[in-house]
């Protein structure tokens, strides 16, 4: 126990100078960078989500996501056929899903599962970590990354705590761990396949593993993404869902 404490203290002391280096970004800057990469100010994206389940089978969802300048997001589902016509909308802390079978929209919670996969609604529809989390740098176990420790500061945040690794070279997210208030790890994510989408470099592929179910994980692939769009505000109102 004493040896562990001593080693930890030594590692911390060694890492402090690098954290404090003038050339290095601050924790707040890195978090802002994460938001800019993962959720640009406006975008129109085409994405595929593949959910790998406990029985080794998969379910594939294809959807389009549109983000407004004032941080609203709307999605349209094209596949599978059973989900075709479904739409989702987030305005501030409010989320709705439009169900074509019901011909109406229902309210959703940020922490509910996104289409039954291993992402939750907040992971996809509410990527605004600067607004939702306080952040500090902590020592990373990987010299090529910075490690950010995020703690929820709003009740709408998707998780209570996140550990987020950002690469030092391109300041891209590399991996993340998501925790419940109890400290239990709920999910972990790996970000890879960095691509250039109309001038924005970002991971095109995210793998989200469900840490509570041994074989379950979900892949989210960005097929295309356009940026800097001028979208009518009415695209992001509840009554436009289903049109």
């Amino acid at each position: 126990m004493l040896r562990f404490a001593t080693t930890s203290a030594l590692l911390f002391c060694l890492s402090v100078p690098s954290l404090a280096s003038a050339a290095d970004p601050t924790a707040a800057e890195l978090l802002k960078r994460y938001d800019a990469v993962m959720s640009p100010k406006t975008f129109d994206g085409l994405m595929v989500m593949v959910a790998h389940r406990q029985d080794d089978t998969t379910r594939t969802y294809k959807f389009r996501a549109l983000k407004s300048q004032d941080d609203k997001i709307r999605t349209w589902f094209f596949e599978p056929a059973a989900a075709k016509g479904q739409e989702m909308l987030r305005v501030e802390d409010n989320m709705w899903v439009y169900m074509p079978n019901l011909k109406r929209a229902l309210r959703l919670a940020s922490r509910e599962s996104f289409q039954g996969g291993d992402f939750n609604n907040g992971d996809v529809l509410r990527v605004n970590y600067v607004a939702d989390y306080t952040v500090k740098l902590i020592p990373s176990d990987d010299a090529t990354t910075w490690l950010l420790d995020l703690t929820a500061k709003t009740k709408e945040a998707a998780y209570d705590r996140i550990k987020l690794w950002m690469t030092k070279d391109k300041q891209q997210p590399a991996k993340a761990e998501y925790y419940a208030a109890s400290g239990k790890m709920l999910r972990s994510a790996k970000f890879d396949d960095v691509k250039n989408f109309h001038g924005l470099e970002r991971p095109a592929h995210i793998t989200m593993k469900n840490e509570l179910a041994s074989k379950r994980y979900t892949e989210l692939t960005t097929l295309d993404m356009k940026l800097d769009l001028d979208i009518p505000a009415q695209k992001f109102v509840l009554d436009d869902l289903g049109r």
Partner: protein
Amino acid sequence: MALRTPYFLLIGLLWALLTGSASAQESLDDLDAAKKGDSGAKKATAEVNGYLDNRFQYSYINPGSSLLSTVNQPSLQEILEGNIQLKINIGSKLFIYSDVSLIYQNGWLFYDKDGMGGRVKIDDHDVATLRPFVVPSELFVSLTPKPWLNLLVGKKRIIWGSGLAFNPTDLINPPKDPTDPNFQRAGQWVARIELPFEKFTFTTLFAPQVLYQQNGLPFAMLKYPDYPLADGTKPADDSYHYLLAARLYLLLFNTDINLFYFFSNKYNDSFENTSRFGGSFSRYFFTDYELHVEALFQVGSGKLYPNHQCANGGLCNPQTALFASKLSDGNLYPRVLVGGRTQFRDESTLSVEYYYQADGYSAQEFEDYLRLLSRAQMAGISPAGQPAGGTNGSVPQRFTFDPLRRHYLIVSYNKPKIRDDFSVGATLIAGLTDLSGTLSPTVSWNAQEWLTLSLFGFVPIRGIPVGTVTVNDVQYSEYSLLPMDFRFLFEARAYY
């Protein structure tokens, strides 16, 4: 027993649509190119999807348990539905949408009372509500000339209230089946103007009532024709039957708020030139708990009440002894639904709703209603306007929530991923006055991404002796009136 409509016609039609609708989009340009020609000019494009659904059900018909006739209630029923949802985009501002179902159905194995407290099989026979028909659940044109203006004409299901299983402010659509949301598709013919803005939306609509329809297609709306129908049916009146509605939606303090105003004349009830008001509210509290309230306020009630004298042996015609006696009594009869919904960590969802209708039957009125049914049954007739499930030009329903009394509890629980593709759920509808109700358990298996197999149960709970009403030495509760002991339904739904 012979099939009236060959299956292969429906299957062939759907197969043709299925094979013709496949398309792949790998980039946003692919998607946008579908709406614009190479030159960027407007171009009409079509999107098709839908499903083929087969429902086969067995009900244990128990004529002795109910005062309602069972002669037209089949024990075995087959419903095959081919659904086509077609959206034709004409540029970015105009589209035509149709959600049409072709339904083949038939029923077999009918029972009636045997006169000794049991049941006796009667011959299979033609039942008008079991014939094949077409259901245009939705069929409308939508034009958005400006981002803040949407015009819509046609048949559409428009739900404004926040209730989940039931919407007391829904005066527009055919009633829905709270035990199965998939059956809540059909809308009403409307002309609608909607002004959507960032924080509020104003909507107004005009809905003429469908007075006659054939196979789901209307041939008289708003006013009865001056002449009788070919079968001799005479026009019921020369009034205009319509509903005008206005609604203001506000997103305030992370809350959905709706305010409604309705003005109707003989639209699905007996109210003439009458105003009604309503409102709804929905918001998440403590992150995970959704709370909603929906209320309708009306002076007088369009509900049908039994004639007390007639029910108790007075001289009358039982066929006309149910009538809207509180239509203009000047009393306020609110209908209020309060409920909540949450999703647990295991992704199961629970919703609980309480419904109160001030114009529900009192104990005396319910007893009169039962006595009236008893008299009608002995006379071999059905009281006009008798509350019962029906098709109303919509997809056939397993159950229509048409409550008679005043206090109800609706609880719905669904647990997905029991194993990866299996879900279980149950819906309980309980009348709190006599503790009778229905329980509808469900097991669902998403066998493939495009195929769902489900097994539904439907069990009337006849209640406990407290609150029941005794007529002719038999104790009745509201849900003991359902003329069956249980029902199983197997459904296979293939999406395309």
